[in-house]
């Protein structure tokens, strides 16, 4: 083993000097969240690094729906999940088909579609909130979860198409030609060669769209209003409607709400790393 040189050490030190503050910056709010959720109501604002009497009482209240704001907790959690998963799947379907058609089948006008997709990013999603509300109203979809699902797919699709198209372009074109000569129809090519090779990107994009919908507040707040239809993020916002918001419960729900994304990311982490295409062609 070689001893690290002075240069190695200074590089490492510089990285740590940046890394440690960034880590703290990220972790302190999360720790704060956690601290609130295990503190009794009276000492929630005590400002201590660890509560005198840590308790799981808050979780009991939340899971048992034992508070006015929490009367539909499980239903709203389910709403969030249902909408997020549907948005993830729909976005994947739309974006994968578009990327395959543009990148592999080389359909005419593909370039224009890519440019349009990029163009939509000049317009912030918030600008589109009112037009979107009006459109959904025209279709009679207000207060229907499909309104939120369609809106979120619209917002997530351009970026997804763009990313998947770029990823598709990296697959060697000889694979398509080989499959065509082996007798594959475009659909078989899509199913048997394209999809398996795109799996890492598909998981990454599916996760992106799912988390985007899971975290969405503005559109969910606008398009849904019924307590039985709203997502948990909107329900969390409603906590603040009262003068004395139950902060410890808000934080507890917040912590619970943050867990699924963390779990999803952890579960799909290995897909986010490429390497599946190794050995396809000589590079």
């Amino acid at each position, binding site marked *: 083993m070689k001893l690290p040189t002075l240069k190695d050490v200074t590089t490492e030190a510089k990285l740590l000097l940046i890394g440690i503050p960034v880590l703290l910056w990220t972790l302190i709010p999360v720790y704060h969240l956690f601290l609130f959720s295990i503190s009794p109501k009276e000492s929630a604002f005590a400002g201590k690094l660890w509560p005198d009497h840590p308790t799981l009482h808050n979780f009991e209240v939340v899971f048992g729906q034992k508070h006015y704001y929490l009367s539909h907790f499980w239903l709203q959690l389910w709403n969030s999940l249902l909408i997020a998963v549907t948005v993830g799947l729909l976005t994947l379907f739309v974006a994968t088909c578009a990327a395959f058609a543009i990148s592999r089948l080389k359909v005419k006008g593909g370039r224009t579609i890519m440019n349009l997709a990029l163009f939509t990013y000049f317009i912030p999603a918030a600008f589109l909130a009112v037009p979107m509300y009006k459109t959904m109203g025209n279709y009679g979809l207000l207060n229907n979860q499909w309104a939120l699902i369609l809106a979120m797919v619209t917002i997530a699709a351009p970026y997804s198409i763009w990313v998947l198209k770029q990823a598709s372009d990296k697959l060697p074109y000889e694979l398509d*030609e080989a499959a065509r*000569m082996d*007798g594959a129809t475009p659909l078989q090519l899509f199913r048997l060669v394209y999809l398996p090779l795109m799996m890492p990107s598909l998981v990454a994009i599916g996760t992106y769209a799912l988390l985007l919908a899971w975290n969405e507040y503005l559109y969910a707040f606008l398009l849904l209003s019924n307590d039985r239809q709203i997502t948990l993020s909107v329900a969390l916002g409603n906590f603040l409607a009262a003068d004395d918001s139950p902060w410890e419960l808000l934080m507890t729900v917040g912590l619970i709400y943050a867990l699924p994304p963390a779990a999803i990311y952890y579960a799909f982490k290995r897909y986010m790393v490429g390497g599946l295409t190794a*050995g396809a*062609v000589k590079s």
Partner: protein
Amino acid sequence: MASVSFHDIEKNFGTTKVIHGISFDIKDGEFMVLVGPSGCGKSTLLRMLAGLEEISGGTIAIDGKVVNDIESKDRDIAMVFQSYALYPHMTVGDNMAFSLKLRKADAKVTAERVANAAKILNLDPYLARFPRELSGGQRQRVAMGRAIVRDPKVFLFDEPLSNLDAKLRVAMRAEIKALHQRLKTTTVYVTHDQVEAMTMADRIVVMHDGRIEQIGEPLELYDRPDNLFVAQFIGSPAMNIVSGTVRRANGGAWVEAAGGVRWPLGHTAGADGQAVAYGVRPEHLSLGGSSAVPAEIIVVEPTGAETELLVQAGEAQIVLVTHGRPVVNPGDKIGLAVDPAMVHVFDQKTGARIAA
């Protein structure tokens, strides 16, 4: 097994014409090599036969049936790509079975054919592995196996050996040739390497700038090149070419090159005063002789079996190859003996061979 015929084939990419009306036939069971420098259109021609490129003009027929409008999957041909193009997410066995599965072939037949192909190519131990776990040569063999299991009418090879190192290339060359001798399937093989073409082909098509320069058996091309391009392209080290003028006097004939060097002419080719390119292969030159052309040695390159000498004769640099180990040194003045019967003469302007 099938014959293939190209009739007046043209190809345009936009407004650029890359193939200018090519016609030739490949016999049933023949190993045909298309060879030429990069950009000559040989790969494009192969891809048109494969159905991967549109045909701009003319017809391609397999077994007498025009395939211009038939999709590549229905042409019953198999192709081995330069980059192997193996499906990375499938095992070696699945890669080879893929085409049969798409054709919904019986599972037993599929397994049998894959096993058979694996045996021919010595891939038995690797059937369950993924392409990424194989060496370059093994991947190349899987690509060939994928073609074999289909038992197609025609095999197409698109520069299959150019990604391999020199030693493996020679081994795979022999393997492909042995495979052809065993299966006797009509084969079209594209390469830019004239040594590959010479060693493997039954017949060679030499292409240049989208046109055919010459078609023939390897030794035919070597011994009687139709034109200057073929003469310089086929053979390694390449044929020596000297520009000069034909002179005839007193029953003798020679080509007079710059600097007054006289190159002997054994036959009656060329009229007195005609500007020609005089060609002689390195192995048809030897040291000494009374009628020798005076020259000076520049470099001596012994390779063991033979010795390559680079010499200066007048203004021309000439390579000669001898089987012995001559005792010479750079700077030595020597005489170059030319075998006049083995000399090639080409018209300086058109490059066409001037027949004896």
